[in-house]
């Protein structure tokens, strides 16, 4: 007996009939050939979130971002008070990485008036234009206008900076983000300037970590011991049901109940949570007053706790209205490894108590994420055994079904556009 109403079709999955209800093949997460196709078909053709505008507060503020999946590095810079630009991080003279400190592979950030190459001193303005060539007279017919930094299309949505590596891209960022993007506009993201960021190198395909964070079917089991024991047994007996799932193009969202913020009875939570009035779902007390934008808590449920928006391919936003959000980014480094980035953005605390409340939430986030992270390598290695290749996904795993279907769709569309590309593994998926 469901606790929350499902669509008239009887299930969330059947509400979106293109998804089907068949077993799902996970070859897309273990095939090096599929990964090679994904790089061009997905990551070179979609808008990718690389940071937030608060990371480039002043003209000349910049940060670099390694984009392993496309074999490049970019530098993102505020070139004017109202403009953020992105460039491939390569000097036009002889290919040195332009912006880096000590270790070329490590990301960096700072503020500058211009970019100067460490190798031969070529300089570029914040708009990417080449402004100075060392011993210019030694070159042959060199027109500086032809040797500016190579731009990458860059735009911002609600303070989130995105880039798009597709030189033929015709889809504006806001259109790409679709109805979830529009429905989140107005969320006070810009107020959330108290930032924690975490990073992990994970031994799994990038999609497996998205999988882990777009279903909560696992939560009462994998995270059982994080709750006090009576509560944990109750949660496992109930299992997990979402308030709602929605799909929009390649993107998806799940809306969740959140009985712990605050809990009905304080004995349901651990002593430290009782004392600090905070936990996994954040501080129990709201500091900001704001009206939820339409995409947040779409069913307007009184027991709502949080939403998880997955913007294809590798960006997630989890609003815990209105005082804090989590974001996730998953950056593939090979078919079976990726870099995970998690950020917690809070309203700045007004005093030590609020600061401690946020610290508890951040520490709790890490405890959960470590549990989530370690299952991924365990899953990856056994998927790679290919002992079993097709898996039953339940109705609470609709977003996984959608993610893997979308990835396969992007790859097959890409192959169709390039008929010369050998169709190596389409039979397997």
């Amino acid at each position: 007996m469901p606790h929350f109403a499902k669509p008239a079709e009887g299930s969330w999955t059947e509400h979106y009939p293109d998804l089907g209800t068949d077993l799902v093949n996970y070859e897309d997460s273990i095939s090096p050939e599929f990964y090679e196709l994904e790089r061009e078909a997905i990551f070179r053709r979609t808008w990718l979130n690389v940071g937030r505008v608060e990371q480039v507060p002043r003209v000349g503020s910049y940060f670099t971002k390694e984009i392993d999946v496309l074999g490049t590095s970019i530098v993102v810079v505020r070139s004017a008070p109202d403009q953020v630009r992105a460039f491939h991080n390569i000097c036009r003279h002889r290919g040195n990485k332009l912006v880096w400190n000590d270790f070329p592979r490590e990301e960096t950030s700072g503020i500058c008036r211009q970019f100067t190459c460490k190798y031969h001193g070529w300089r570029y303005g914040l708009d990417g234009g080449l402004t100075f060539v060392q011993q210019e007279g030694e070159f042959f017919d060199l027109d500086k206008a032809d040797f500016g930094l190579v731009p990458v299309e860059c735009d911002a949505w609600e303070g989130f900076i995105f880039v798009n590596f597709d030189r033929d891209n015709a889809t504006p960022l806001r259109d790409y983000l679709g109805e979830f993007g529009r429905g989140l506009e107005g969320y006070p993201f810009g107020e959330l300037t108290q930032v924690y960021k975490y990073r992990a190198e994970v031994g799994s395909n990038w999609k497996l970590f998205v999988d882990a964070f777009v279903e909560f079917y696992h939560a009462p089991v994998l995270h059982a011991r994080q709750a006090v024991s009576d509560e944990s047994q109750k949660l496992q007996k109930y299992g997990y049901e979402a308030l709602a799932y929605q799909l929009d193009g390649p993107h998806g969202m799940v809306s969740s109940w959140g009985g712990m913020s605050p809990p009905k009875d304080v004995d349901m939570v651990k002593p430290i949570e009782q004392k600090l009035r905070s936990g996994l779902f954040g501080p129990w007390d709201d500091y900001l007053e704001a009206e939820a934008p339409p995409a947040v808590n779409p069913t307007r449920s009184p027991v709502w706790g949080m939403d998880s928006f997955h913007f294809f391919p590798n960006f997630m936003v989890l609003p815990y209205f209105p005082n804090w959000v989590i974001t996730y980014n998953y950056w593939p480094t090979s078919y079976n490894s990726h870099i995970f980035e998690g950020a917690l953005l809070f309203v700045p605390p007004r005093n030590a108590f609020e600061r401690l409340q946020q610290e508890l939430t951040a520490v709790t986030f890490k405890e959960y994420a470590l549990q989530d992270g370690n299952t991924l390598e365990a899953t990856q290695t056994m998927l790679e055994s290919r002992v079993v290749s097709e898996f039953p996904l339940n109705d609470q795993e609709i977003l996984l079904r959608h993610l893997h279907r979308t990835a396969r769709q992007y790859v097959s569309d890409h192959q169709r556009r390039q008929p010369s590309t050998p169709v190596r593994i389409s039979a397997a998926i």
Partner: protein
Amino acid sequence: MPTLPPEFADLEPFADWCLGTEAERYARRLSSSMDEMQAFYDAAFPRLEEAYTYLNRFDLHALPEDATHLLWLYYSLINVSFPVEVWRQPRVPDSGAASLAAVVEPAV
């Protein structure tokens, strides 16, 4: 050894938990025994409310040095609360080789 406000002199034996970064606090937790963490928790947890009440009297961004140490001590208490209240061991169970590095954290 970092000093604490006089009102919290009884917590001085645990002043080596006054650590300014998450990496230091987490490393300290992983290298501590459960007995050490239980002793720290038993001493500091009952004074949590007094500690934040004391700290709330200051501007969070202009804390005296000893008050900053007290705040750091309570960041450590929060970290240690997981082994003590939940795991009964320093590490998250089954977290094996998984790691999650704090690469940005608030200045205060």
